[in-house]
Each structure stands twice: as C-alpha cells, then as structure tokens.
C-alpha cells in the first residue's frame, strides 16, 4: 500500500532507522550516566558505549577512534574545523581556499573569519558543478593554511575530486578539510586514501538522530590540532567541551555500522531507482539535469523543468516532499546560489526540484512520483505564459520584462 505523503527529501534529513532507535533507547532510561563520570558504574557504562560508537564511526571512514571529535552536528564541525585551524595555525598563514557552492556553514564561517583577518579564495565551479584540481593548485599560495572542499554537494549530489585534491594538499603541506555531510554513509569514504586531514559529518543524514555529528581530526602524518571554539570541561581531547550526548552518539555509531555493512547493497539499489526516476522525468520536454551526471551521489537528482516555477510545482505535487531551488522557498527571495554558480539562468534555477531518495524509498513511491510530477509539470505548463511563448517560437530574452 502506498502511504502518502512520500518523503524524497533525504538530503535535508533522514528518518531514524528503527535499529538505530532501538540501540539508543537504553541510554535514555537505564544507562543515563555522564560519560565523563569516572567514579561509578553509571559513568563507566556510558563511557564504554561512547568508546564503542567511536570505533563504529571510525571504521566507516577508515580512521582511528581517537580521531573522532563529537559535536552537535555538521554545522558545528565545519565551524570548529575552519575557525579552529585558522586560530591554531595563525603563525603559518591566513589564507583559506573554498568553493562558491559550499554549504552556508562553510561560506558564512569563512566570511566571519574574513572580518578577523583571514584571506579567503572562493573558487567557482564548472557548469557541471565540479572544481578542478588545477584550479585549486593555482589558488594555493605560501600563506595558504587550509583548503576546504565539500565531498558531495547537498543540492546537486555532485562529487568533487576529493582524492586528487587531498593528494595535492598533502604534497603542498596545506591542511585539507572536507564537509562530507552528504557523502559519509552513502558512498565509501576513506580519510586515509583520500588524504583528508579534517572531515565533518553528521548522524541525521544517515538514518541516525539529529543533534550529533563528528569532526574527524587526523592524529598522525600530520598531527592536526584545532583550537577549541567551545570552552569548558576539556572533553574530546580539549577540542570540544560539553557533556557528551550519549544516546545520540550510540545512535550515530549504530547508524555508521549499518551504513558500512549495507552500503554495497543500498547504493546500487538507490541508484537504480534514482536513475529510473530521472530518466522518466528527463523525457519531459525542456527538462534538464543539473550537475555532473557521472560523478554523483547515488540517491540525488536535481532537475529543472523549464517554464514552470518550482514552488508552484511543489504545490502541485503536495503528496511528495522535495526541495526546490526556487526563490520563493527561501527567506532571501533569491534562487539557489548553488544553481546560479553553475551559470544557470535565474529562471532555470527557479524551475528546479531536488529529489533525495533514501533507505526507505520504494519502487512504488518512484512510480507515483514520476506520474505525479509529470502531470503537475504538464498542468502548470498549460497555464504558463512562458511555455506558450516558447511554443510560439518567441525568444524570451527578446522581451523587455518589467521588474518588480
């Protein structure tokens, strides 16, 4: 039985896997100690659970459990990584390199540091959303201390050439941070092979709970340190104070374990469904895939339906939860800056939908989505003056539009 509404916004957040939820429950009601309490069994039990989760998490990303710093989520991890490196390595330089398509947690952190004396280079990406290693190499200067490039883009799903960027940074002696929020748990990520020094990720994008994330901080070759941004009891090797969210961490660990064990099956399964959805929707006239088709997360598809406005379209598919790059869905009234960075016209950015499939997506839901989106696009085009002009062969660029 098809149950409505359908959730295809898994890049925003995911449902907690029932197995994760089950693993967490004892840590609310029974083992409710403080993991930092060293003098009684309540604390010991929690410390043990946290250590175990640390191993589960480290194993998923090819790191060591001592290299996992728990945070409240990827936004905090990104802040800690960038601000922490900027402060810790101030004597080495003040230059940071990043991309214009990064998440706001990176871009706004960089902007904040610019006010404190940082020099930040925001590299633009190609029409397919990817940056080249050459562009990064050309931007590295003697005072560069950090390169931060996201693993998989949240809006497009495109995967940056992380391994090559990592190797470049290593050869240049520059620290490399990656915001891997969308990638970890979805595709194999290996901090050793990818030469990643710092990496942000979070539980709630991989069927874990909200409110818990991690920053991977390399301990060997090189040994990386970040200046704490939260002062207090000196938890997490002094890099992030605050009582550990034990149930959250236990759930995070379990989510990582499940992802590690099931990724090989889950990735191709989601890719197959995603490709079926995408192929069907791209059969609609004047619909375009945004971002590189090959180098992409298996569960994400971003499509523009020209001459149809995204928010209007979402209203027509109200039984399907997706996101749009349309201005109307954001507080700023600007269409998606990520789509604009690809060189897309504003109107195509306004016409985009992001589909994010997940572990619990079914073939039946994909069938329904294909039918529903197709009908809504056709209906809205029937009432779109732009579609009528396009069909009459009128070049929309030749019209003098009245701005408002």
């Amino acid at each position: 039985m098809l149950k409505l509404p359908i959730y295809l916004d898994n890049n925003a957040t995911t449902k907690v896997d029932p197995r994760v939820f089950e693993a967490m429950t004892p840590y609310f009601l029974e083992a409710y100690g403080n993991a930092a309490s060293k003098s009684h069994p309540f604390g010991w039990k929690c410390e043990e659970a946290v250590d175990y989760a640390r191993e589960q998490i480290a194993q998923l990303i090819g790191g060591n459990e001592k290299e996992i710093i728990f945070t409240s989520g990827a936004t905090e991890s990104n802040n800690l990584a960038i601000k922490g490196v900027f402060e810790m390595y101030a004597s080495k330089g003040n230059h940071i390199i990043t991309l214009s398509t990064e998440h706001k947690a990176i871009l706004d952190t960089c902007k904040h540091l610019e006010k404190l004396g940082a020099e930040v280079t925001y590299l633009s990406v190609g029409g397919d959303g990817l940056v080249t290693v050459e562009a990064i190499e050309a931007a590295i200067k003697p005072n560069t201390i950090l390169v931060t490039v996201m693993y998989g883009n949240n809006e497009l799903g495109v995967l940056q050439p992380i391994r090559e960027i990592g190797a470049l940074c290593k050869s240049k002696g520059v620290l490399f941070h990656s915001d891997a929020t969308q990638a970890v748990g979805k595709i194999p990520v290996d901090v050793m092979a990818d030469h990643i020094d710092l990496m942000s990720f979070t539980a709630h994008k991989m069927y874990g709970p909200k409110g818990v994330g991690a920053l991977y901080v390399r301990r060997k070759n090189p040994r990386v340190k970040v200046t704490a941004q939260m002062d207090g009891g000196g938890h997490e090797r002094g890099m992030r104070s605050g009582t550990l969210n034990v149930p959250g961490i236990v759930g995070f660990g379990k989510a990582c374990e499940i992802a590690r064990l099931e990724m090989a099956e889950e990735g191709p399964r989601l890719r197959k469904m995603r490709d079926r959805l995408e192929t069907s929707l791209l059969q609609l006239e004047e619909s375009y895939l945004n971002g590189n088709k090959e180098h992409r997360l298996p569960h994400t598809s971003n499509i523009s339906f020209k001459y149809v406005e995204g928010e209007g379209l979402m209203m027509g598919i109200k039984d399907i939860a997706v996101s749009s790059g349309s201005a109307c869905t954001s507080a700023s009234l600007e269409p998606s800056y990520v789509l604009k960075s690809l060189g897309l016209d504003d109107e195509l950015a306004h016409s985009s939908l992001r589909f994010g499939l997940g572990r619990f997506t079914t073939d039946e839901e994909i069938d329904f989505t294909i039918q529903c989106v197709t009908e809504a696009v056709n209906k809205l085009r029937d009432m779109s003056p732009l579609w009528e002009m396009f069909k009459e062969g009128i070049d929309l660029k030749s019209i003098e539009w009245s701005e408002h």
Partner: protein
Amino acid sequence: MAYSDKVVDHYTNPRNIGTLDKSKNTVGTGLVGAPECGDVMRLQIEVNHETGIIEDAKFKTFGCGSAIASSSLATEWLKGKSIDEALKIDNMEIVEELALPPVKIHCSVLAEDAIRSAINDYRAKNGLEPIESEKTHF
C-alpha cells in the same frame, strides 16, 4: 508554509485559464513580472465597445501558488466590471480574499499591475491615453 484554502482552490481549479486573440482591438493584454524573478503573469480582458464592460478575462501565470491564485481571482473579479470599476481593484483586496501572508503580497501587487497593464493596452489600441498609477508599492 501552509496555503489558505482559497489559494489551494484557485490553484487546483484555476478560473479562466487561456488566451484571447491579441489582434482584436477589443482585447487588452497585460504581461508583467519577469522570468528571473520567478513570476510572470499575463492577463487579458475583452471589452464590449458599446457598454465598456469587461465581458471576458483570461490569464496564464508562471509562478508560485499564490501568484496563480491572485491572477485567477483577478480574472473572476474583472468579468462584468466596467473599466473604471476594474481600475479600483486594490491589491490589498486580493491579499484579504486569499489570506496571503506578508511574503506573498508581491503576488497581489503583480496581479494589480497586470490588470492596469491590460487596461492600458486596451486603451492604447483604441487611441486613448494610458492611465498612470496613483499609488506606489514598496
């Protein structure tokens, strides 16, 4: 953000979608907004020369649900009105009728602009001066 029932109704069952013959001098066409802003409305009226009454109104809109509903409602209100009465339609009446939230007020402004623009197109076709807008929107 949840839409009001009236917006949903107009979106689901839009009134008067369509196209009138632009070449007729009884037809006035208003095309307002811009694709890059995410809203374009085209509103058309057909006026009876004898009576000065708007006998038909059609629209097509590229935009969000509130923009579609605002233009749909405008065509409903225009039919049967004289030009003078039509010019009195205020965007805030649309806001009230559709219970538009503050972020969607621009949709009603666009609908009012479309009405005015269609009327002026009709006037221009018939050798009349355009009517200037007396109010300024912010």
